[in-house]
């Protein structure tokens, strides 16, 4: 498999009242194309920091990040914004749809960043909304008028509209109940099965089971890695393997 992201001695340090807090310490890792990579870890371990650093949304203190062979750590803010819109999709725990835009507009706003052809973008947005089970009668609604699960699926549609090389998902089911959470995970899994690369941060085992590769972050370092293979519903061996890995990591 091709390497999509490669990091070299990645460090992130925060200064808190003059006290230095080393959140990421010399991380060397690779993310592969087509993988559903899960980043797990305890609260405060640095997993979200790692995710946002990998996506170019936050700058590391030290180290390099290469995305498809191109170093992104040297890019300025605008170059990073351009990099993100061309290569990345984001799914957040709090969804973060723009409240003043309708469901369709939220998806199209991302699409129009890449493709200026309004008709094509509208058609693509509608197609992708349908694929995440957001039907036509919801397209003109505003985020405050739909449920959390629906909003998260709209968020996934927005993340995928530009066919990004990699989707970053930060606890996408964290704010959802188990039923809607499962729907969201099914949606992500479906897209991964079609070849979409995904990196997802979670501390939920059920969510983590969807990944084919698990990275465990502990005290700012990659403490361990577990390869599970593609998700198959009801595969008990895979569940056991993940459980054993997490136990070995002190979960």
């Amino acid at each position, binding site marked *: 498999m091709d390497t999509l992201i490669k990091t070299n001695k990645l460090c992130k340090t925060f200064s808190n009242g003059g006290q230095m807090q080393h959140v990421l310490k010399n991380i060397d890792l690779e993310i592969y194309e087509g993988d559903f990579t899960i980043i797990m870890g305890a609260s405060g371990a640095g997993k979200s920091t790692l995710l946002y650093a990998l996506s170019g949304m936050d700058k590391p203190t030290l180290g390099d990040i290469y995305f498809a062979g191109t170093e992104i750590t040297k890019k300025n803010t605008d170059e990073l914004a351009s990099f993100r819109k061309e290569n990345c999709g984001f799914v957040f725990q709090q969804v*973060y749809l723009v*409240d*003043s835009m309708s469901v369709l*507009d939220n998806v199209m706003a991302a699409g129009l960043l890449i493709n200026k052809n309004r008709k094509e973008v509208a058609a693509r947005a509608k197609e992708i909304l349908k694929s995440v089970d957001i039907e036509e009668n919801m397209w003109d609604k*505003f985020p405050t008028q739909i449920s959390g699960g629906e909003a998260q699926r709209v968020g996934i549609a927005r993340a995928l509209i530009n066919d990004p090389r990699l989707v970053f998902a930060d606890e996408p089911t964290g704010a959802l109940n188990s039923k809607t959470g499962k729907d969201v995970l099914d949606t992500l899994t479906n897209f991964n099965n079609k070849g979409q690369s995904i990196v997802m941060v979670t501390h939920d085992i059920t969510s983590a089971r969807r990944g084919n590769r698990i990275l465990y972050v502990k005290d700012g370092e990659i403490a361990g890695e577990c390869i599970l293979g593609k998700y198959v519903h009801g595969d008990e061996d895979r569940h056991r393997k993940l459980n054993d890995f997490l136990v070995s990591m002190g979960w």
Partner: protein
Amino acid sequence: MEKIKLLSRSNFRKNKGTCVGLFLLMMLASMMIGLVLLLFMDAYPTARKEAEKLDAGDGYIWIMNDIKGIDDEYVEELIGKETKDYYKYTCLGYDSISINFGDGTVSPQVLINNKSAFNKAFDRTEVIVEDENVTGKYIYLPYQFYTSGGYEIGDIYELELTGTKYSFTVKGFTDTTYFGCNNDGVYEFVLDDDSYDEIYAKDGEASDSVVIAFKLKEGEKLNSFRIKKLNDILKTNPMAIAVIYKLNDAINGRSFMSLVLATSFLTLTIIIVLVITVMMTNSISNFIKENMQSIGALKAIGYTSSAIRSSLYIMFAFMALLASICGAGLSYALMPIMAKIVVGQMGIPYTVCFNLICSLIPAVVVVIYVLLVSFATTGKVKKIEPIVALREGIENHSFKKNHVRLDRSAFSLNVSLALKNLFNYKKQNIITFFVTGLLVFTCVMGLLMYENFSRNPKVGILTFEICGGTVGFDSSVKEEAMEYLENLDGVSNIRRMISLTLNYNEEDSIRGYIFDDVSKMNNKEVCYKGRLPEFDNEVAVSGKFASDHGLTVGDEVRFDYGNESFTYLITGLIQTCNNSGREGVMNESAAEHLIDFTDAPAYYWFDCDGRDAAAEILDNCSEEYGDHVISSMNFYDTLEGNLTTFRSISALMMILLSIISGIVIMIILYLLIKAFVYNKRKDYGILKALGFTSNALIMQTALSFMPSIILAAIVFSFVSYYIANPYMAMVMRSFGLMKGNFHIPVQGVVIIGVSLVLVAYLFSILQSLRIKKIESYKMLIGE
């Protein structure tokens, strides 16, 4: 109390930017109110206070040209019954002569006295400043010659009287109630006794005049006294040029400029305070919204709504108090600039003094207003449940309608998103629309004043007739002089004009301009309704006079002059700002029903090509007719002299209006955009995460305010263009302007509109730069 103070301090620390913006608005409001009050309550009454100090009496009678038989007995018989005191003296009197003033000349009546002027029983003339070392041929000038005439002690003052030029050293400047202001139309010069005697010996026969200052008995009405006595004088001395000047007219003439300044400032202040009101209300409301989480947290830990509200009251009241003190201080700092103009016009020494009321009122008004707004807007704090507040639960915007659908929009993505912002933040845009609109209006008013009083002075409003020059001849040579003038090179359109005071119903009077042929007048614009008179039974009167007496075009009006009376048909209404808007015009044939002009002097008004041509023509007349020339005026020079003050005031107004408008629009955009960016910070974080660049978001934000600003600039440019004249007519009605026909240059209005839009756009971009600081990562993880 301590915890409330703590909260107030914390509120202030967290919202420094908003507080500074609000502080500046409050300070501006306070400064403007302070300035208006100082102008109205401190500068405006100066002329009256000075008149009281000089014991000015109720008025004076001045008789020139024909004073035969006007002795002590005559005066006693004339006014003895109605007055409790009077004081008569003789001096040299000149009607409308050209004298040097400022950059040009003015043509007032001139009263020349010797040092006995300083010994009057009342209506005193006092020396303000003098140099005892100046000896020889010297002159004391009215103080206005120092304040706006450009003269200093020791300067040489050239004076031309009946064709003879005199040169004096300026020994000092005087303070006098009636004879010291250009607007009152008469100056008093005090000469050394030898010079006075020299001029008296030469001009005494023609220019000897009598001045009688008087104090009326209780119950006597000055207006009817004035009209009756003028008529009585004309009955015995029909060729006399007699004027009775009232104290109030003198004071009003002197206070004219402070009143114009105060009125202009009052208008501007009303607009600015209106704008500030809207902005303060909006900002305080935003302030509460921005602090919703803190309010929720405080409520959750047990603070009551009243404690939270009190902390906000204390903070705003403290800010308002501090701002109003600074504003009042600023008004005192700016007042000397105003005072310079006011003093220039009044010709009375005036220094800005601390005035407790003028200082207290702005503070009280601003603090009370801010407290009221705070009280009204913080009402919602009471209704907020802690949990709702913690979730920043108050939502001002309703996104029920998708005004700009991206799948159907014809605009680019950035413009479409800007339009979405525009519709989603209607309230802010409506505020921007009206604020920009009002500022466009104030700037257009400034432009009107600058254009019509400074750049291309609207001479027809300031003076009754426009010409190149005027020259007056005594009756012995008037026919011959007319022929002489007609044959002079460069002279055209000669018209004979004399002005008389015509009495109406023993209660009012007008200054009547009598032309040999009214149709020769250049300033036909003076007639704003109906037409100028043509026949011997017709008159056009000023609109103010007509409206005061319920008269209009087509009505008849009876005028008295001496023993004669005649009823005229009003053919038109005229307007000027002279003589308090009480003027009239008729043909000589019409005036002959009231007066026989056979022995009257003749004043010829002529057109010519510029200042030098006028000067040459006047010099030729002087050389040819010497002492027979009783007055002369180079209109170009006179205009320059008269416009000096108007120019400075209109330029000052233009500068002030532009600066204040610019400052206000910047503060307002600062507050609006700051609140806007704050409210949308999460959206910006999301959009940045999606790949929108900061520049695109900055552009969107700045653009979202532009439609309302551009629309306001267009709409209010049109509106201002059309309502500026009616508005000016309304404001200046008391000065005689009934229908504004000031020129408003379209290019100027376009420049104002475009400049405001550009300033607003650039400042919006500048303010929106704060979006650059928003980091999507921090925003999304809630830092």
